[in-house]
Every structure is written in C-alpha cells, then in structure tokens.
C-alpha cells in the first residue's frame, strides 16, 4: 500500500459502472461535468453486458450495451476506476464530499495492454470462470470476458502460481507483479449511487436442490447459455451435456416469499423467463418449455403481447407452486407442485430446471457514508425520501440514486432512473453555485 493517498477532485462521483451508473455518468459528462466512475468488477457494463437478449423486443443486449460502454470509456470527462471500491464518504459541506477510494492491483498496466491474449494462452492454470458461472474454465491470466471494457488482461493473484509464463509471453511487457493497491482521496460536489442489485442466492431454498443437483440452474446461468459468447456453444444441461428437451422454469424463486424474508415482487423474472422460453424454442425447436408461476405480471409496455407471443409459440404456463425438486438417477428432476387451478398436488418430470431468481438489495449500500446516514427501505434498498415528486433523491442532500439500487426494475426503467438522477445531480451542483 502506498503511504500517501492520491488526491483528486471531480464534479460527481458515480458508484457502480452498470447500465444505470454508466448512463448517469455519460449524461453528466455530456453536459460538461467531470465524473469519476467507480466499478468494483474488472469491467464496466454491470449485469446487462452479460445478458443474451432483452425483453420485450428481443434486441441483442450486448449490441445495446457495448456502444454505450465504449462511449463511456472514451469520454474525456469520465475517469473510470475498475477493480476499485469506495470505502467511505464524508460530507464536508453542502457541495463537498470527500471519498476514500481503493484501487486494487490488476497486475497489468492498463494503458499498455493490447488485449492480445498471449498471456492467457501461456498461463498453465485453469480455474472456474466466474463470468460463465463455472460452466467452463478460465486462466489465471485472463481477459475477463470478450466484450469487457476495458478489454485488458488481469491476473487472478489468488490462483496464480507466479510461474512467469504470462510475463514472458507478453509482447508489450505490461504485466507488472509489483503493483500494489492505490488509495485515493477524492473531493466531489455530488454523489450518485448506482450499486445495482444482487440476485437471490438459491442455496437459501435447499428443497429446490440448487448446488446439489447439477441440472438445477439459475436463469442468469441460462442467460449465459443463450448469449452469443456462451460457454457450451449450444444449450446443454450441465450435469452430463445432454441437449435438454423438457425444461421447467420456477418463477418467484426468492421473491414474494415471506419464508425467506423477501415478500416483494422482483418485477423482472416473469418477463425474463418468458423471454428465455422464447429463445429456447428457437434454439431447441423440439423442446417443451413449462413455466410454473404464481401470477404472470406483464405490466409494462408491450409485455402482455410478449406473454401472448410466448403462449402462441407453445410455451406451457402452469399456475403452480413448487414444493420440492428431487433428482432421478438419470439426472432428470421431479417437480412436486400444487396445481392451483386443479386444486391438487401433482408431479412432473423435467430434464433441466431453471430457477427464476429474484432481485435483492446490494449490501454495500449501507456502508458508504461516515458522518451521514443513508436511509434504507425495509428491504435494504436505498430509500427514496421523496419518491413521488423526486424519486432520485435520498436521505442525504446532494446524494442521488440511480437504477436498481433503489429497488427492482427493468433495464428501460433503470436508464430512466439514471437520467433522473443525473439531471437532479446537475441541477443540485448549479443551484449551489
């Protein structure tokens, strides 16, 4: 650790480089404000950059995200720190916040890396690829994923054997094992929190068998299987590589469920499941897809038509709550469920089960501010203190919230929310001048 903290000042600090944080940063920068964008992952783009397609238009997600991400990366008024975290923020006055930021070492000099991947070829170590949810391996010297921004290698130091093969292979000599964490002390006039959401951890519902049964996966894992940069280059069940032909979606996994402490609706699972069902019908034309639901909440523009389209394509919708999932010897799964319309308990066999995991809050939200308290709502999302009149405001003056940090919402709503947060932040700065 360097002893001296590096000092800098910007107009705005945006925490989180997902689609909401990126959009907010871009709006501010396009209006002449300087922005520091902090992202804890190795790439900006958040969860959206990993998606296959978006509902209800079935547009390619990467095709929307990558130009935006590239615009953010190249903007002269936006400074991006990836692999970095905000430790704490002190509010010094009305228009002055001081943030402690730590940038973890990547062991690669970002400016010099050309993304040639020769280090990746040379590295002998293979570990589970977190960006493909462990369906495939990656090297310890690696480009996080093909459309990462910055598309720069990183060294996974926890799994590195320090053999030096990557350094020998690197044509620009950009790998640098002497790198250490750098601490920054940054002064800004306003803060936008865009820390996003976490997906519900299905291990908390052991009766669904996630983790124990290899053919029970999450919808985000299926999303990767459907994306152009997919791990298997087709859809396969992870247990034995079989091409699945009887797939089941379990909606409301971790949402609308008081027993696991999350009674609220996640707002996106119905629609992303319907989207994936349609994509699966295209990818696996012979497959049967069944969606087990409590209610289908197709509330947005074009959503009901999208639901009808799925029914028209032959997706089977069953109003039922899943009680138990058990595994047969051949890897198939038996779903025991309450058929609500028939008022009976039934069983059905499927060869791949996808859990539509819900949206939960990011625990990082509560920890940023030292001398002010950032109020959270009962579900630990950031509280919008004036939700109807000014939904981007938080309990701290000059601090705004963008995207799913304030609660579950879909991509267009996140971008809208980022627009609102950036406008409020700019008008806040101007009003205090």
């Amino acid at each position, binding site marked *: 650790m360097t002893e001296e903290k590096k000092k800098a000042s910007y107009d705005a600090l945006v925490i989180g480089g997902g689609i909401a944080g990126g959009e907010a940063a871009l709006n501010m920068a396009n209006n002449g404000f300087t922005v520091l964008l902090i992202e804890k992952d190795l790439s900006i783009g958040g969860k959206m950059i990993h998606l296959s397609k978006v509902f209800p238009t079935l547009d390619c997600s990467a095709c929307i995200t990558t130009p935006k991400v590239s615009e953010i990366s190249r903007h002269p008024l936006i400074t991006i720190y990836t692999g970095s975290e905000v430790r704490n923020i002190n509010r010094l006055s009305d228009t002055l916040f001081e943030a402690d930021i730590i940038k973890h070492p990547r062991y690669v000099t970002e400016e010099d890396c050309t993304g040639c991947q020769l280090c990746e070829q040379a590295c002998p*170590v*293979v570990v589970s690829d977190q960006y493909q949810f462990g369906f*495939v391996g990656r090297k310890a010297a690696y480009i996080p994923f093909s459309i990462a921004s910055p598309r720069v290698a990183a060294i996974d130091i*926890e799994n590195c054997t320090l053999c030096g093969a990557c350094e020998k292979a690197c044509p620009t000599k950009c790998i640098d094992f002497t790198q250490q964490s750098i601490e920054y002390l940054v002064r800004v006039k306003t803060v936008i929190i865009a820390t996003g959401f976490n997906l519900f951890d299905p291990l908390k519902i052991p009766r669904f068998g996630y983790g124990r049964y290899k053919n029970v996966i999450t919808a985000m894992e299926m999303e990767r299987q459907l994306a152009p940069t997919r791990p298997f280059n087709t859809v396969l069940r992870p247990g034995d*590589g079989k091409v699945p032909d009887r797939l089941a979606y379990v909606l409301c996994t971790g949402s609308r469920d008081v027993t696991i402490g999350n009674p609220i609706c996640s707002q996106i699972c119905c629609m992303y499941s319907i989207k994936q069902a349609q994509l699966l019908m295209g990818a696996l034309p012979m497959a049967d897809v069944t969606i087990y639901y409590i209610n289908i909440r197709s509330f947005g523009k074009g959503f009901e038509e999208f639901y009808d389209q799925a029914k028209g394509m032959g997706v089977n919708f069953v109003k039922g709550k899943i009680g138990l999932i058990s595994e047969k010897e051949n890897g198939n799964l038996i779903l025991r469920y309450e058929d609500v319309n028939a008022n009976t308990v039934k069983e059905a066999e499927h060869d791949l089960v996808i859990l539509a995991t819900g949206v939960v809050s990011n625990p990082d939200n509560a920890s940023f501010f030292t001398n002010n308290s950032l109020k959270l709502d009962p579900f630990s999302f950031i509280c919008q203190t004036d939700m109807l009149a000014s939904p981007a405001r938080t309990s701290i003056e000059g601090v705004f919230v963008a995207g799913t940090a304030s609660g579950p919402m879909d991509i267009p709503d996140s971008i809208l929310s980022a627009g609102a947060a950036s406008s409020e932040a700019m008008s806040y700065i101007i009003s205090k001048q």
Partner: protein
Amino acid sequence: MEIEKGKTYKYLKEKREIPESVKENLKNYTRIKRTILDVLKEGDMTVGQISEKTGLPRHDVLYYLMTLAKYGFVQTGGIDDMDEYFYYKIKA
C-alpha cells in the same frame, strides 16, 4: 531487490507463498487434461462415455471438455442417434 521489467513475478515470488491448493489445482488440471485427451485418441466420445472410461463425474467431464474446447484442444463432433448427446473429438 532490483526489479527487471518482464520478470516482475520474481519480485512477488519472494514476498508471497503459493498456497498448496493452487499448486494442487494446477496438477489436477494437467492430469485430467492428459486423461481426457488420451481417452479421445480412441475415438469420438460423448460425456457419458468419457466418464465411464475415466471414472470422472459427468459434470466434471463436461466442464473440462468445454475448457479444452475453449483453448483449442477439443472440438464438438456430431450428435447421437437420439439427438441427445454430442460427440467430442481431438481438434485436428
């Protein structure tokens, strides 16, 4: 110590001990890679067939096959008569 550009791993090697689990993981991968590639020399096989020959669990076979495919050692061949399982082969 003096740090030479292009050999900075030596600097960290003096400061950092490599955990046994990391060394073990490397050995494990190298061994499984060799086992799978040896088995595939006998002919194209499905995940199940490789699993039977090697004793590795099927999900592990799929993981390593896909990793070997990613790094250019293995490629996917045709599908079986039931349209259920793909065959995998050594990349030509």
